[in-house]
């Protein structure tokens, strides 16, 4: 029984003291592997979207905003889903890194959601004739923004970082019920918002010339999300462990 507790406490100590500095060091290298594809892909998407791709047969040049709108809308949902997944990991396995991930990903996800809403409004005016309608897809995307803001607000109002991380984990899990509702809102209520541009079953309704920049944009935005979140995590990690020796050592050594 004593050896069992000793093993457990040793393992816990290893987790606490071992993995965080390791992650901090290794993540600096991962960040580069995310940053390079992010910059390359997004640059390609922007250039292709603005210049290379022909105008749409119906919407003309207006549709070019799609190359920003669609990837950010995808990422807004994807980021929340990963946060909920990390929430499960944080609560079940008590993994500190998962808590930190949620805290770091929330502002990034909120930014993507905001970007999707703004570009959607800009796109909506010329095509639908209105900046905003209380359409199911738009409304639920707005609610997603509020979910992100809720996680951020909860994190800011709890003083103890450990508790704040776990509280945010639970809230992300509870909020994930909205993600399928957002995803299916276009199918359930036949609304103004068009259906998915790409779907796994139905294939794409897009010309391949137009499609490739979009896919590149999605990849680029995903890498951007990973990159920004990783940096956010590193900052959170330094702040949380600011009293520990390994942080001191790294700051002293530069």
């Amino acid at each position, binding site marked *: *029984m*004593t050896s069992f*507790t000793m093993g457990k*406490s040793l393992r816990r100590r290893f987790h606490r003291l071992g993995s965080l500095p390791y992650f901090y060091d290794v993540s600096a290298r991962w960040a580069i592997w995310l940053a390079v594809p992010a910059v390359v892909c997004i640059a390609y998407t922007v250039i292709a979207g603005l210049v290379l791709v022909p105008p749409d047969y119906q919407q003309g040049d207006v549709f070019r905003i799609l190359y920003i709108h669609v990837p950010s809308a995808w990422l807004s949902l994807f980021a929340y889903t990963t946060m909920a997944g990390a929430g499960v990991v944080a609560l079940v396995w008590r993994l500190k890194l998962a808590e930190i991930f949620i805290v770091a990903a929330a502002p990034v996800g909120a930014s993507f959601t905001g970007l999707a809403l703004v570009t959607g409004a800009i796109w909506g005016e010329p095509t639908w004739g209105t900046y905003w309608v209380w359409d199911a897809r738009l409304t639920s995307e707005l609610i997603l923004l509020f979910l992100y803001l809720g996680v951020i607000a909860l994190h800011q109002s709890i*003083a*103890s*970082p*450990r508790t704040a991380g776990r509280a945010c984990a639970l809230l992300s899990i509870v909020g994930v019920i909205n993600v399928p509702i957002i995803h299916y809102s276009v199918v359930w209520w036949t609304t103004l918002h068009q259906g998915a541009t790409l779907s796994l079953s139905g294939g794409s309704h897009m010309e391949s010339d137009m499609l490739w920049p979009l896919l590149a944009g999605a990849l680029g935005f995903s890498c951007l999300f990973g990159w920004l979140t990783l940096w956010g995590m590193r900052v959170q990690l330094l702040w949380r462990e600011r*009293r520990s020796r390994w942080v001191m050592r790294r700051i002293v050594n530069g």
Partner: protein
Amino acid sequence: MTHRLSVAGLRCGRGERALFAPLDFVADDGDIVRISGTNGAGKSTLLHTLAGLLSPISGTIDWCPDANEAVPSLGLIEHQNALSQVLSPVENLTLLSRLAHPASRIDQATIVDTLETLGLRRLAHQPTHTLSAGQKRRVTLARLWLIAPRVWLLDEPVAALDSAARRRVSQRITRLAGGGSVIVYTTHERMGLGDTRCVALD
């Protein structure tokens, strides 16, 4: 020899700041452990951490369980009395004893009898908010008679009590320790318990 409670290198606090220097002590069945320290030294936090309500900042707490119980059954009396103001003492104690021993039938008569030994018979069915601070404390201490956990964690048990009630509670605690319970308590008053161990927080 395995001890019922062994604490090694324990540091606790709310948030990240530890309230006292690392703590090591053990307690066996029948021990009465007095936790001493100034106001804000972390006595209540330590009791909460021992009860598993707070996670320690570092260090370990090992409860040596009996063969047939996974967790040691544990009673905690905090500063707060755990009494609903709108319910009567009897109603409150019914719930508290049911929480501690779901299977046993502690009936109303037993509770009223216990309240009588503490001089509260007349108030047994009054709403708790009509009682004085000392009377409320006595109601919550009636748990010492009603339920029998292996470990009692008592935070300032005799605060606000008059000397007669204080003596009665001290006798009861000594009797419980004699029966093999572990008592961990904090106090600023003189309680006249035969402390077997003393832990000072600094």
